[in-house]
């Protein structure tokens, strides 16, 4: 068991520096051991994610519950790749990541899941995250990266290189797309908050 890590920031998930995490092999073993329940179409993926946040995220300030933090996954939880949410929930409960329980803000976990579901799953079906060794390593490395961690024993540079080197053209495209969307979301938020944009324009109708 590793020593207790310090809490992660509440900042955006993404490739902005990382802390030492679990051994990659342990995380991949947890992925391979994903319980079959995640494929059950009757599973309420959003409720499962809420429960996961309650179990593994840092305590919410003011006693807020985890439902609100899970809300951004409401649409993906109804979508064709919703099993990915179950896989990530199982991974967060697994032995490899257990020492990091309480480390992440719930919003950060949700955003990482959004990225995994919204970007990686678009290229690599969640079933392959479990069944295919190469895809398993891609999923494990990317999830760690989004969580602000890197595989144990790897420097930041090595972890980044291996993620890039491992990347299939599809995953490389996914990572580039992810980075573009992150930049774009920040740009949109900044633009809408800008005073010049807030002055808005005169309207002749009420709708």
């Amino acid at each position, binding site marked *: 068991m590793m020593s207790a890590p310090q809490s992660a920031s509440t900042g955006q998930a993404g490739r902005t520096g990382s802390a030492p995490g679990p051994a990659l092999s342990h995380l991949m073993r947890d992925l391979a051991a994903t319980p079959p329940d995640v494929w059950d179409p009757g599973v309420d993926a959003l409720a499962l994610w809420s429960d996961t946040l309650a179990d593994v995220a840092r305590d919410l300030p003011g006693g807020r*519950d985890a*439902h*609100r933090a899970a*809300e*951004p996954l*409401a*649409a993906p939880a109804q*979508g*064709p790749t919703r099993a990915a949410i179950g896989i990530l929930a199982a991974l967060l409960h697994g032995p490899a990541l257990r020492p990091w329980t309480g480390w992440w803000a719930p919003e950060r976990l949700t955003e990482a899941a*959004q990225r995994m579901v*919204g*970007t990686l799953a*678009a290229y690599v079906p969640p079933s392959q995250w479990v069944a295919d060794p190469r895809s398993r390593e891609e999923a494990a490395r990317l999830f760690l990266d989004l969580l602000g961690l890197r595989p144990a024993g790897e420097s930041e540079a090595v972890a980044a290189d291996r993620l890039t080197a491992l990347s299939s053209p599809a995953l490389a495209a996914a990572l580039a*797309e992810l980075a*573009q*969307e992150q930049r*774009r*979301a920040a*740009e*949109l*938020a900044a*633009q*809408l908050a*800008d*005073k*010049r*944009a*807030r*002055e*808005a*324009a*005169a*309207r*002749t*109708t*009420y*709708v």
Partner: protein
Amino acid sequence: MSEHPGAAASARPLPPHHDGDPVLGEYEPFADTALTDAERWPTLTGTGAARLAALRAHPHAPAWVHECGDRLGADDLAALAHLHSEISGAEPPRAGSTPPSWVTALLERAATTVPRYRRTWRGAPPAFADVPTITRADLAADLASFVPVDLSLADAFTGTSTGSTGAALVLPQHARTVGSDLIQLRRLVALAGADWAPDPGRLAVLSVVSQETAFTYASLLSAFEQAGLARINLHPTAWRRPGDREAFLAAVDPQVITSTPSALVDLAEVEVTLRPVAVISGANALSPAARDLLRARWGAPVVDLYGLMETGPVAASVDGGPHVLLPRSHHVEVLDAHGRGVAVGQRGEIVVTSAENPYLPLLRYRTGDHASLTADGALADLEGRTPVRFAASDGTWVDAVGLTQVLQAHGTLAWHLHQGADGELRLRAVGGDEEPALRSIQRLLGRRPRSLRLARPADLGPGKPRRFSSEIPGATP
């Protein structure tokens, strides 16, 4: 313009429940102005500038609290002039299941540039009928995923829904899209049989609100020979001296009055003679009684406009009949509970696909509003935009917009406020600061709601969130 609260300057005392709420204190007059006049009206002429200066400095003008132009450049004006000639005699499009040809190009564009869709479609969109519908909650949860990644945002500005019915949103807007509303109005006024041409002696458009706090401004319409536009607030605190409101209205002699049903009814009660060529009602449903009242008061046609901030105006009823679609890049469907197009005469939810706003193309956007599809592709018996006002303990009415302002200012994510026949209030809410929000409501209404906290917006019930309801007679004017 959004319904940002703007503190209205006044030396007179306010009724007790109209004390400015401290939570709205950040909204100072002119706090959100940042542009120069040359940026507000890029083609501003000397004549236009003089007209604007006269409006701003009118001796009876309200205490303006904002500045706002139309941001239309020469290219935009040329495009709008083309649109005007193109749609003036155009037949209205028809609502229904068959998408127009431009929808194919919109799908292809979404599949490659809109994150939400390219993640799934990878450049190969499905048939239109298989495109999943989206809701306001989807935009609220992840707006950026609906904004194309290949457009510069440098000229985007904000649009905010009024908060009178559905969930409020802040969206990126484009000047040409917002400016095209005027072109649509010109067509509707002509359809109503009225003549509307720029008249240097009259205000072209009077935009009216009637609430405790609101942005007001003097402006110009670049696409209408830089004729005047004024947004005023009928609330007494928005004016500098008693009598100014009536004197200003008489002096500017507005050609077209645009507002919400409740503010139009309030304006009809103001003792001043106006002679508008047309009256435009929007935002909420216009009841037949209110329509008759307005028509009788001013002897002008009354147009009921239907739309959402997300889509812009969608349809209009010029004569009290069904709402006929506007000639815009909108495809309107009426879908049943299973997402299938309804037959003529059947009711369903209005779902809009729109290419109007380049920053926010919408594919099968569920409005939460319902209507019946008519044989000629119009929308009959539109419902879902019912305005609500609340009875304060002193017997006065308080518009729901004021409650939206304080609830949003306290960070409330979603809510439903209900007033029973006995005046008691019940608030069901998600997120935000509970106790301060309750105190703000009490300050406005003189009553403290019973409060129930909910975990997520979906707990408020299915469909478009109903923010307000009341059992008190007269609460829905």
